């Protein structure tokens, strides 16, 4: 059996990639993708620990996270569409009116 | 259950008024406000309480049942009336109805919301003056701020936002301070020796003496002092005692007339009422230790407020500062710890409520007609609106303490009470100093009247100035009659107030 540490390293790597994408990209679609990556990193953790402890709760939880991710994409794409309609762009640094 | 019914009805009435169309809101609001008025008047006739609510007296219309437990304390619905709260309840209902009637002319937008808020405020005030459980009381206490905030902020003058926020934040911070003080005293000091937060229980536990434990490193004596100061400052903002008064003129100047009437007439009394219930009933020993300071503050408020009123050019600011001055008398009476002092202070709350309400309303009627309140902008109004001016003059003399009007009775009782106080050192000198207020008040009111009401008519604006409509003048006349009635027969209230005060001061202490 593959030791759990490998999964965790993988998950940490995926999460970091997602985080990196979130911090550096300005395109809203890439934002969404990065968030997906981070969520999936969490999913990997859930599944890995589920396997480790022989407990199905983690796997069930990962199904919930997928559902959540789908919902999030639906809302997110909606926001991005509105963003595009208003600014003719999907750059997240452009709309700044929601500040102080 | 009559108290609960009235409070509940008023809340429902507020909701109803919110929903009716703007055109009829005034009439609906006025009609609905008659119910609590009639109810409180009925309670007045049926009043059978005796003694003080907080020292084991007999309550009238008492209701008491448990609501829920909160960190080891039982929260109760506990209401009832004694000789101190009944007059204030009557005052509240009376002024609300009149204020609603007087709002006819000045309020010309969002009427249903305005009258709804007025009734909402009345319900909370009734609750505040009748509740005897701290938790319930505090909820009502805080909830009165909300409607007033909106009344100033929505229907106010040009600087209404500044005034509303200042009013809300200032008094709310003060409430916080008071809350901390009370909680430190009860949770920290009394600890397990009480099992509810009902005010009589707290007062009697404190009165039993010696069972205040130290809390957070504060010795019992220090804890009581800190709690007293926190509550005192908290209430002093509400009164307001100079130098914590600066929110008041701003709030009054910006507030629409009916809101000013309620603010000066009832909301200021919350501070002195709570001071009497909390500081002076629960911690009288601390109060006597600080007597010289508090008496000095009272006298200072009287003179300082009056001198400031002298400098004002805006009629509403004049009346606002004179409120600071008049409420200083109340503080002086409370700290005297004599029957006449404390009872006179309570009477003065009622008297000032009626007279300041009258004055604000009269200024409002003048403003409705002339669209200005600046003393320099007008003169000789008596020529054009004789009845209003007549009532204005009568009210102003009431404010100056003309005998056979309510203000004189209140002030006189306070002076007699504080003159022979043994708690205040050199009490006659303090009293004499504060009494000089009666000269200054005559000075600024007479000066303002001479400049605005008399002399040849002129107005710095193109408005047709004629006699005020009947529905503007009627509430003024009713208030004036009430002021005279209380001045001729102060025993309408004074008797029951004395009865409720007597247990507090115990043989002229």
């Amino acid at each position, binding site marked *: 059996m593959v030791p759990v540490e490998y999964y965790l390293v993988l998950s940490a790597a995926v999460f970091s990639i997602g985080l990196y994408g*979130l*911090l550096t990209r300005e395109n809203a679609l890439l*934002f969404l993708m990065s968030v997906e990556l981070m969520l999936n990193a969490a999913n990997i953790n859930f599944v890995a620990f589920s396997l480790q402890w022989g407990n199905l709760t983690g796997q069930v939880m990962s199904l919930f996270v997928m559902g959540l991710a789908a919902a999030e994409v639906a809302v997110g794409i909606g926001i991005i569409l509105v963003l595009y309609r208003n600014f003719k762009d999907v750059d*997240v*640094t452009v709309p700044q*009116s*929601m*500040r*102080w | 259950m009559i108290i609960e019914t009235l409070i509940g009805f008023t809340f429902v009435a507020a909701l109803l008024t919110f929903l009716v169309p703007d055109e009829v809101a005034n009439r609906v609001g006025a009609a609905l406000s008659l119910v609590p008025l009639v109810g409180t008047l009925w309670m007045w006739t049926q009043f059978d309480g005796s003694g003080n609510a907080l020292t084991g007296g007999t309550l009238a219309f008492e209701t008491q049942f448990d609501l829920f437990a909160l960190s080891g304390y039982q929260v109760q619905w506990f209401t009832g009336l004694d000789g101190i709260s009944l007059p204030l309840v009557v005052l509240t209902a009376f002024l609300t109805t009149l204020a609603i009637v007087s709002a006819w002319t000045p309020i010309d937008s969002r009427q249903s919301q305005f009258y709804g808020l007025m009734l909402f405020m009345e319900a909370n005030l009734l609750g505040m003056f009748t509740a005897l459980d701290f938790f319930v009381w505090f909820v009502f206490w805080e909830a009165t701020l909300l409607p007033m905030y909106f009344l100033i902020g929505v229907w106010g003058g040009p600087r209404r936002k500044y005034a509303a926020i200042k009013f809300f934040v200032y008094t709310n911070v003060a409430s916080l301070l008071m809350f901390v003080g009370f909680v430190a005293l009860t949770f920290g000091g009394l600890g397990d020796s009480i099992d509810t937060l009902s005010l009589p229980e707290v007062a009697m536990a404190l009165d039993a003496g010696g069972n205040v434990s130290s809390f957070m490193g504060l010795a019992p004596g220090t804890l009581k002092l800190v709690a007293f100061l926190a509550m005192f400052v908290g209430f002093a903002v509400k009164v307001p005692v*100079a*130098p914590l008064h*600066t929110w008041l003129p701003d709030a009054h100047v910006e507030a629409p007339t009916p809101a000013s009437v309620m603010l000066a007439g009832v909301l200021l009394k919350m501070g002195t009422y709570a001071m009497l219930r909390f500081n002076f009933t629960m911690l009288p020993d601390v109060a006597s230790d600080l007597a010289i300071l508090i008496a000095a503050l009272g006298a200072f408020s009287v003179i*300082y407020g009056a*001198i*400031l009123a*002298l*400098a004002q050019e805006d009629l509403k600011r004049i009346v606002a500062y004179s409120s600071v001055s008049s409420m200083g008398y109340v503080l002086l009476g409370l700290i005297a710890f*004599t*029957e*006449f002092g404390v009872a006179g202070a309570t009477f003065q709350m009622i008297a000032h409520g009626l007279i300041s309400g009258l004055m604000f309303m009269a200024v409002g009627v003048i403003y409705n007609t002339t669209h200005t309140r600046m003393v320099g902008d007008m003169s*000789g109004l*008596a*020529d054009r609106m*004789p*009845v209003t001016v*007549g009532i204005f003059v009568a009210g102003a003399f009431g404010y*100056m303490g*003309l*005998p056979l009007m309510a203000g*004189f009775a209140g002030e*006189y*009782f306070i*002076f*007699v009470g504080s*003159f*022979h106080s*043994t708690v205040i050192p*050199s009490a*006659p000198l303090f009293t004499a100093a504060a*009494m*000089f207020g*009666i*000269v200054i008040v*005559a*000075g600024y009111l007479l000066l303002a*009247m*001479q400049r605005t*009401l*008399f*002399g*040849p008519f002129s107005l710095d604006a193109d408005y047709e100035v004629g006699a005020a409509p009947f529905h503007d003048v009627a509430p003024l006349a009713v208030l004036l009659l009430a002021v005279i009635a209380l001045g001729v*027969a*102060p*025993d309408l209230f*004074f*008797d029951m107030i*004395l009865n409720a005060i007597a247990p507090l*001061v115990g*043989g*002229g202490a």
Partner: protein
Amino acid sequence: MVGAFDYAPAIVLLPFLSFCLAVGVALSGRDLLPKGGALPGIAATAGSLLLSAWVFLTVSGGETYNETIYTWAAGGEATGSLSQPLELTFGLLLDPLSAMMLLIVSLVALLVHVFSLGYMNDEGETGLPRYYAGLGLFTASMLGFVVADNLLMAFMFFELVGLCSYLLIGFWFRQAGPPSAAKKAFLVTRFGDYFFLIGVVAVFATFGTAKFAGEGSFPRLAEAAIQGEATVNTFLGLAPTAWFTVVGLLVLGGVIGKSAQFPLHTWLPDAMEGPTPVSALIHAATMVAAGVYLVARMYGFYALSPTAMAVVALVGAFTALFAATMGLVKKEIKQVLAYSTISQYGYIMLGLGAGGYVAGTFHLLTHAFFKALLFLGAGSVIIAMHHNEDMWDMGGLKDRMPVTYYTFLAGSLALAGIVPFAGFWSKDEVLYEALVHGLGTTSGLGTALLVAYGMGLIAVLFTGFYTFRMVMLTFHGEPRTDTAREATEPGWNVKLPLVVLGILATTVGFVNMVPVKDLTGAEIDFLHKWLYGTEGAGWAETLGTSGYQYHHVLFADYGAGMAAANLPSYLVGLLSLALALFGAGSAYVLYGGADPDPYTDKLGVVKDVLYNNYYQDEYQVWLAEGVVLPLSKAADVFDQAVVDGVVNGVSSVSLFGGSRIKRIQDGIVTHYAAMLTLGLTALLVGFAIYGGWF
């Protein structure tokens, strides 16, 4: 049996009803009553006069009345060392003094109502219901003050007459002057009332009661306390005598304000802005008398303190002289009368302070009539002169208005103190009392009384001069203007009051001719007997408000400690009569010609000082406008800048902090994400350090 005393409250209530009626008419804004509401006023005051006469007759039968009729407020607990709760009550005290005063007030009020028909109605004034409402309320308040059985009630009605005075001085509110004068009158008297109110409060705190007369009244308690027979509260660590002196002087503040004594006299000349009948009723005959009446009312209390007596006498005498000098140079007829009023009330104060209870009261009585007469006479002249009050525009009116002239002359002779007119007898008695008590008493009080007598005597000379200067300028010589040439006498409603008062001013002095009694031995000092009663019996014993009681206290060691020298009263009277004749005669010589010169203008700087009232108004106005107003403006600036500044400063700290920190919220989502990440990292590092992972 129903007697006069059962109807006594109606004396007060009748004018009050006429007030209510007039207010109703004024509110309706229509002409509901004929004569603008004058008739109910006349009916009410006539009713009061009849009832007062009935009361007077009953009192002269030896009966008196001293009962509480209404409890104003509950009394509460007993205070300090007292045994009884406070008595906050209204009641009636009907004894010879108040019965006499009732007659004066209701009679003058009635005559002034009648006169007002001529002065106000016939002159076509508007706002008459308001005028008659003011007169009605004034009469009611004044009568209420007179019958008050305790100091609190007296104070209340004292304030109410002040209100009426304000309303009536400011009757012509559309002009600039009257409202200002009204304000000044109320404010200056309020300043005195401030001390009075402290005094009332102090009396309650000291004695627990403020009753004037009878068992347990405060003068009696005070007397007993000084002798150590009763305990009362004293304050500020003072002994009873010293404390009572303080209280007496505090109450005297109100007296000085209302009776226009120095230094609070400045309002009275200004009060002449009001209608002349009002000047006659309020500012000469009755309200101004309220102050000195109060001293007479609680004379038993003042008599206990030599200091208070000396102050009363000195203030009175100084005012008498001071005001008389100012009256010398005035141009307007009502101004002369105003200063003479101040001066005459000074005499009354002098009489009372000098231990002459009867003398002071006597002068109060005579002055009420002759000064009301003089004011109404002046009113008649003013009607004829079409409201020009300058005496230099008059002259020669005696042929054109004989009734006015002869009655005015009677009043002037009384005022100047020429035998046998009323003022002679009373003023003479005042001076006599001051002299004999001054000579007899050895303490500082004696010296004070002698000084006071000196001032009073000099004032007699000036009084004679200014009175006849006024008479000569107004009525004698040649008319100096067309108006004066065409003057005609007003109707019956003006003449009738003048004649009634003229007869009284001539004859009322005969009620107390002490010099004649001393010469002939005839028992004709009726007023003396009236106010003394029977020693040790009847009302003199039960009420303790008789001259015997006062005499006893005045001469007791524990009281003022007075003593009387033995002097024949007619000699003293001759001296003052000679001075008065000299004063009047010189005025006749100087101004008696057909076209007199303004001689007083030749006084130069002295005239300026006098004409400007010793700059008393200036310094009081300066106090108000030059000190208090700037002070209040400064306080306002301080309040806005410092007190409110602190409040706004506290809020500006959070506002400023918020305005800086909110810039983190810059709207760029990436930055928020970075912040989240940094926050998480910081949290992890924090936990790591705290948890000891490193």
